[in-house]
């Protein structure tokens, strides 16, 4: 079945099945453990939300990490003040991130292009720098906001007597670490994907695409672009807040570096790597980067030596240091090379690149006679 013409329902079902079955198919790839699975789902949500803004309107925000961070802080505060239940934490995370997005978006969207990007970057960096230093009473600075034994947790304390240890986050009693946490994130990811798909397919999505394509025409067609963009910005900020609160739900700590520009840059890279404006691309990009970060960094010489133990010893001594350059402490190098290779060989990101490749091969098969279809000619 051709990906491009796939029925949306089929696409959604395949997506849901693939996500829920991650523990199964990631097992041989060494990725089947709760934390990484959770991270896949969470950063998938982050990237899918980011794509609603960047992919549809073409507005490149370089400050989305601020919303991720605020989502986390709000969630941890909800644990500290009210209850360890995940639902209020989630709601607070989304709400606060949405409110911040409304403010930042309202100001930043007065500009477009690179000016917009730098405005969002500046807002996020301010949030990060303040969270790291002056706002320490709220954020606990470098260490990150954590739960404490002395937290009030008013709602929980009304029903259950406090235990000696720190309580864990839960969903009405179901502990949110480990696999249940993953399934919770996965369910929200699938929901997030569904909403994103509906937005892509809605008149609203069409308007956003129109903004990316030709703002002049939008204006002279009687459309007010600002509220559309602001809505898209807030929606994607809320996705980021959701992702942030899920980070806190699966692991109740909120660190300031979640708001740093590198974190904003990461989601930009995830989206571009997978394919800007494609539905599943950002998810793939997020998965790849998190996989590299967690799995490739874990290889050390001992592991490598074991992996290559089938080779003769002399060869092992040769191969291990060379491969070692690219894994373990060298995982950044592999990631950098991956970016370059993808962008060269799969322009438009992995999803679009693969799509184009498939089309290209099809066309070549079709056009053995050498006839070129009009679409193949360069457009410009």
């Amino acid at each position, binding site marked *: 079945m051709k990906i491009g013409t796939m029925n949306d329902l089929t696409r959604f079902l395949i997506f849901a099945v693939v996500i829920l079955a991650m523990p199964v198919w990631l097992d041989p790839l060494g990725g089947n453990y709760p934390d990484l699975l959770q991270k896949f789902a969470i950063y998938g949500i982050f990237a899918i939300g980011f794509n609603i803004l960047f992919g549809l309107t073409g507005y490149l925000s370089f400050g989305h990490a601020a919303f991720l961070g605020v989502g986390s802080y709000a969630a941890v505060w909800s644990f500290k003040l009210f209850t360890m239940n995940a639902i209020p934490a989630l709601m607070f995370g989304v709400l606060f991130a949405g409110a911040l997005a409304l403010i930042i978006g309202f100001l930043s969207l007065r500009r477009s292009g690179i000016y917009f990007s730098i405005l969002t970057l500046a807002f996020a960096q301010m949030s990060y720098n303040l969270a790291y230093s002056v706002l320490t009473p709220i954020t606990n600075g470098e260490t990150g906001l954590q739960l404490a034994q002395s937290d009030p947790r008013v709602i929980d304390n009304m029903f259950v007597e406090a235990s000696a240890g720190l309580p864990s986050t839960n969903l009405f009693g179901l502990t949110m670490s480990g696999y249940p946490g993953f399934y919770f994130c996965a369910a929200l990811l699938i929901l997030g994907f569904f909403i994103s798909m509906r937005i892509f397919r809605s008149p609203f999505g*069409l*308007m956003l*695409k129109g903004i990316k394509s*030709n703002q002049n025409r939008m204006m002279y*067609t009687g459309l007010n672009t600002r509220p559309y963009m602001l809505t898209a910005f807030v929606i994607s900020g809320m996705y980021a807040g959701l992702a942030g609160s899920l980070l806190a739900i699966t692991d109740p700590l909120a660190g300031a570096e979640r708001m740093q520009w590198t974190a904003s840059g990461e989601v930009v890279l995830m989206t571009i790597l997978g394919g800007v404006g494609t539905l599943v691309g950002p998810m793939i990009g997020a998965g790849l980067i998190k996989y590299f970060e967690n799995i490739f960094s874990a290889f050390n010489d001992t592991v490598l030596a074991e992996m290559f133990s089938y080779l003769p010893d002399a060869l092992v001594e040769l191969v291990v240091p060379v491969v070692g350059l690219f894994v373990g402490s060298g995982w950044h190098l592999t990631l950098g090379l991956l970016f370059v290779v993808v962008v060269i060989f799969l322009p438009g990101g992995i999803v679009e690149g693969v799509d184009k490749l498939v089309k290209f091969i099809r066309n070549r098969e079709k056009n053995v006679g050498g006839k070129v279809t009009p679409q193949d000619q360069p457009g410009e």
Partner: protein
Amino acid sequence: MNDLVLHLDNIQKNFGGLSALSDVNLQVEEGTTHAIIGPNGAGKSTLLNVCIGRLKPDAGHVTFYGEELTGRKPHEIAQMGVARVFQTPEIFPEMSLLENVMLPAFSKRDGAFSMNAHKLLSRQGDIRDEAEHILEDVGLQEQMMTEAGSLSRGDKRRLELGMCLILKPRLLLLDEPTAGMSRHDTNSTIDLLKKIKSRGMTKVIIEHDMHVVFSLADKVSVLARGQIIAGGTPEEVREDPKVKEAYLGGAH
């Protein structure tokens, strides 16, 4: 004067020290096709830009059905029912033709902003029918699913016209709708515009091609060096010695 669609009242527009429009007065009546002709640099496009809110006049007023247009934002003016076909087609090149035409249809139905994210495009049957109908009107229904960016220049212009028509504007502004077209394409465009005219839509058209002007226009105004130097029916204008000097004769 309800039948006065567009009224330009002593419009003045300067760029730096240069005066682009000075004391321009223009009245467009309902149901008519009003052509504005003039040599290059006469200020014709500036005039349209003032009408749609892209430029703000330095002095004077533009009213539309008696309502003030000056100072309004472009999207507000468009919502009031003024649509424009540009000299270089302003379309959505990455979208299919169908989407290009459906998008303005939503603007017409839902207004300048509508939070319609919960609806599905594929369920908007009425809008789609309407869009297909318009595409048929402009002769592009065959290519409905192709990307607009890959169209020929003439077809892009036609598409843009379709995008304006689906807005059912009370006033349609056309900036050289046939520039750069082959004779064949020009003729079919004239036919198309005649068809629209028969529906009673008011139009202001800027045109170089006199063949087009005389086949479409009810009224002609001649703009030269930022001023209206003559006006009237095509025949009157054709005979006007000032026009001959400034434009028809002088230019060649």
